[in-house]
């Protein structure tokens, strides 16, 4: 899923400091699963902001609405009747959400309430880790099912570098050296030969480097099947 962290209250409050009536829009997709932008978090943010504004003596009206998904126009269209009622809207969806909203409602101002961080998953309750860099050319099968592009700090294709120490990356003792894991996995499986030789140069055109990407499925473009 897409993982995000909520922005600080200070940053969010500064964004809407001049507004008197706002909407906080949550999303029932990834950000609900990573506990940052679902109904609960929307309510908590609304209450926290009201406390701040009361303390300041500047009243604010806050409504909340949690969209099924902010990355689908059919759900984004669902708030068309109310979106004009507010001075501004804070979206707690990933970076995709406030853009879909901005594109559909060009006259409204949408603020991102979260920092979208990575594609990953929860390794334990409350801890999320990056697993995918969305490079557009998946080859994890070559690396014991583990991705060095996303998980090596230097995206090395022929690692591990000289900074690998006791299974940890040189940048941080809490960061796993994924190449250490890959090498040990191959060695344990008796498949060291998979790591002999030079792995070719990566084509980054399928990654963000090739420009903003688009995925087209012709049979669906023509209608539901």
């Amino acid at each position, binding site marked *: 899923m897409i993982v995000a962290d909520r922005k600080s209250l200070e940053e969010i409050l500064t964004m809407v400091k001049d507004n008197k009536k706002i909407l906080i829009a949550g999303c029932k997709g990834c950000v609900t699963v990573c506990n940052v932008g679902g109904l609960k978090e929307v309510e908590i943010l609304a209450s926290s902001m009201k406390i701040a504004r009361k303390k300041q003596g500047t009243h604010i009206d806050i409504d909340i609405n949690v969209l099924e998904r902010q990355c689908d126009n059919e759900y984004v269209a669902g708030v068309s009747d109310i979106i004009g009622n507010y001075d501004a809207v804070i979206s707690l969806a990933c970076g995709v959400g406030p853009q879909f909203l901005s594109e559909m409602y060009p006259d409204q101002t949408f603020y991102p309430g979260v920092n979208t961080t990575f594609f990953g998953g929860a390794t334990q309750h409350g801890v999320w880790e990056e697993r995918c860099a969305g490079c557009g050319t998946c080859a994890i099968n070559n690396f014991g099912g583990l991705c060095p592009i996303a998980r090596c700090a230097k995206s090395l294709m*022929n690692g*591990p570098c000289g900074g690998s120490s006791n299974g940890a990356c040189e940048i941080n003792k809490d960061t796993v050296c994924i190449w250490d894991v890959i090498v040990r996995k191959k060695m344990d499986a008796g498949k060291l030969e998979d790591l002999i030789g030079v792995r070719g140069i990566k084509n980054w055109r399928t990654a963000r480097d090739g420009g903003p990407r688009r995925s087209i499925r012709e049979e669906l473009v023509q209608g539901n099947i």
Partner: protein
Amino acid sequence: MSELKSGSNLEKVLKAGHFAFTGECGPPKGANVTHLKEKFQYLKGNVDAVNMTDNQTAVVRMSSLAGSVLMIEEGLEPNFQMVCRDRNRLAIMSDILGAYALGIRNMLCLSGDHQTFGNHPEAKNVHDIDSMQLIALVKKMRDEGKFMNDEDIDVPPKMFIGAACNPFADPYEYRVYRLANKITAGADFIQTQCIFNMEKFRDFMKKAVDMGLHEKCYILAGVTPMKNAGMANFMSRFVPGMDIPDSLIKRLKSVDKKDQAEEGIRFALEQVEEFKEMEGVAGVHMMAIEWEHRVPEIAERAKVLPRPVL
């Protein structure tokens, strides 16, 4: 290795079977050419080639390419270091061409320390290709006369290709295979990370010799003389991939503070003596970090002078 690949002095020295002795010099944090040239004078005539580091530890300094050219002007031979952290394949290839055009004949291909260590930790890193692929690229440009995209190069750069090797990083059992991969990729010579744990290095070299790697490539053992016990402690704790045995720290601490530098040099000299005899070791890479002025004395006492003139 019948014909010379690059014609660099380092290549000639190694090919002639001499025990090579290379040095290292960090470019200034600024455009202070005067100071840089002073440092060159300590190295001139005492080493076969001098590594010009490339934003080492991710701290911004004068470019290694410019530093290398200044070195040539002063009559020394540079070993131009290049990291993959700061350049994409376009910049890498154009810098290689530029380096060759300006007289550079040795190159050391590196991944580069992560930028979070340096003085611009907010930087975006590149890592379009990795050090292994960089080695293969320099070899392709030299031997096939082609760019990465297979287009022909009008006057290919003939570089003597160097690579780094850290036998003290993990996973240890894999390190010798990674070295083999670098040689397969095209490394002509290897400069190892600073060696302090001699026992581990002996074991590593035995493995490398058993695989015949020393016959395909020149392996230069990395030596850094310790200035004092504090430096040893610091490197042990904060420099990634360093293996500094407690026995060495103890040895440095066992003498008076004012004598610790001498003790550090003595240990380095003992290392050089052992490397001269060690099977598979073709030379020493002396990294006297910010201690260039001690290199003449170290070279003298290491009995590696005069350097061969070929």
